[in-house]
């Protein structure tokens, strides 16, 4: 598995979590393990940082393949029976975050920026849902990725052509991604995120930096030794 994601800076995570109290830390054990973000030590350090932000970590849960919708549904039911939490922080690629966001009642935020998914395990999706842009903006877009959910990959709101929630380009087959985003943000009381300074992507961030590539190779080599 060639997944590469990088933890977001904690300053950014803090900004996303500032209105919440109790958090579920949900990590993907699938491809994530090959990179290390879902390793127990890493999760411990994320937990410590979260607590420094003044939030309680209700539970840390690792699931094999957050891209498996049924699995996610099962574990979220389980977590909701056991604990109270008002926000979920997901350690996975952008696909996992979007599956959790779809299945959860609580606001869901990414802990990582997804840089590349060279190959993919888990459930095959009908359509790519993460373009590994290296600068995850799911917090601003209600957990729906505009780069993949919108036919034009627009970042700053719908083009004028959407009618009744369908995409103007492929009305028969596609929902308008921005309609989905609008609905989500409306439900979350966060329509304020639809105005303000435009989002402009830094495409240089989708190139894996050398130090991450070599770190990944180290982790992979370590994995091979223990096999």
């Amino acid at each position: 598995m060639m997944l590469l994601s990088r933890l977001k800076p904690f300053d950014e995570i803090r900004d996303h979590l500032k209105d919440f109290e109790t958090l579920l830390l949900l990590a993907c054990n699938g491809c994530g393990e090959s990179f290390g973000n879902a390793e127990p030590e890493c999760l411990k350090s994320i937990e410590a940082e979260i607590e420094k932000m003044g939030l309680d970590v209700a539970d840390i849960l690792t699931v094999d393949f957050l891209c498996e919708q049924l699995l996610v549904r099962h574990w979220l039911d389980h977590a909701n029976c056991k604990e109270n939490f008002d926000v979920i922080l997901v350690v996975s690629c952008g696909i996992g975050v979007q599956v959790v966001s779809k299945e959860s009642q609580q606001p869901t935020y990414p802990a990582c920026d997804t840089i590349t998914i060279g190959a993919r395990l888990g459930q095959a999706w009908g359509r790519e849902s993460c373009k590994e842009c290296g600068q995850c903006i799911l917090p601003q877009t209600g957990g729906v990725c505009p780069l993949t959910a919108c036919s034009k990959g627009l970042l700053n709101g719908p083009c004028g052509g959407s009618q009744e929630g369908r995409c103007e380009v492929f009305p028969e087959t596609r929902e308008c991604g921005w309609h989905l985003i609008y609905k989500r943000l409306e439900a979350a009381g966060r329509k304020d995120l639809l105005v303000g300074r435009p989002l402009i992507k830094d495409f240089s961030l989708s190139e894996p930096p050398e130090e991450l590539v070599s770190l990944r190779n180290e982790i992979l080599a370590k994995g091979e030794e223990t096999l």
Partner: protein
Amino acid sequence: MTIAELAKKKDFIVTAELTPPKGADYEDTLKKAQDMSGCVDAINVTDGQSALMRMGSLALCHLLRERDIDPVLQLTCRDRNRIALQSDLLNAFALGVRNVLCLTGDHVALGDHPEAKQVFDLDSVSLLWAVQKLNKGVDMQGNTLKGATDLCPGAVVNPNASPVEPQLLKMERKIEAGARFFQTQAVFEIFRLDPFVKTAREKNVPLLAGIMVLRTPAMARFVNRHVSGFQVPEDLMAELEASPDPTRTGVQIAARTINEAKGFCQGVHIMNAGKQGLVQQILAEGGITRAA
């Protein structure tokens, strides 16, 4: 004069749309422009509209300027990345073009080159923001420019969107990003403009209502199928179909909408008037007279 300046000087602004030729021969296109130039304040030149490959907007804007016609450069994000877009904005300024309508652009799947790679590095909002930067003498990355531009950026809203709120929020976002005028997508029912006119008034940005000329029932059906963002209402379809002279009826419908827009919007933007002489007819019928 820029659209923003015109709005301060005049009660009612009229712009019309011109589509560059599919090919190297622009004589007919220029003739159309010269024909209508006497009764409009500025002419928008489209940029690969409906994702159809044509002559570019800037070349025609330049040819219009040479003939003392004020152009509005339409600039879309489909075919160029941020480097090319900023460079084209500088090109436009160098050639004396001042009005720039910032658009996202239609998806390539809708046009005549569906195999093309589309860009969308920026979108309409970030393009407006880029213009604002160039006007301040820096590029998007913050590098200092040798000479700032003085462009007048405008934008489009679609009053027919449903639901309407996401469009309104986007309109606000466009104003924040520097939009100094709006030209709307075609409207047939003027009440749809209400919330947009309200926002435009609050923010003091002129808004020109989009008027589309329906020349034949077949053409109305064609735009319903192929032009995204609006539908011709059924009663108007019926009116066209029942008419012995549909073009005449189309002109009357357009003139009616113009009359309704008076006193409500700062002007109108006439689209798709293709055939020579139609813009003049519509304006005369709509009670807008101007020295040719």
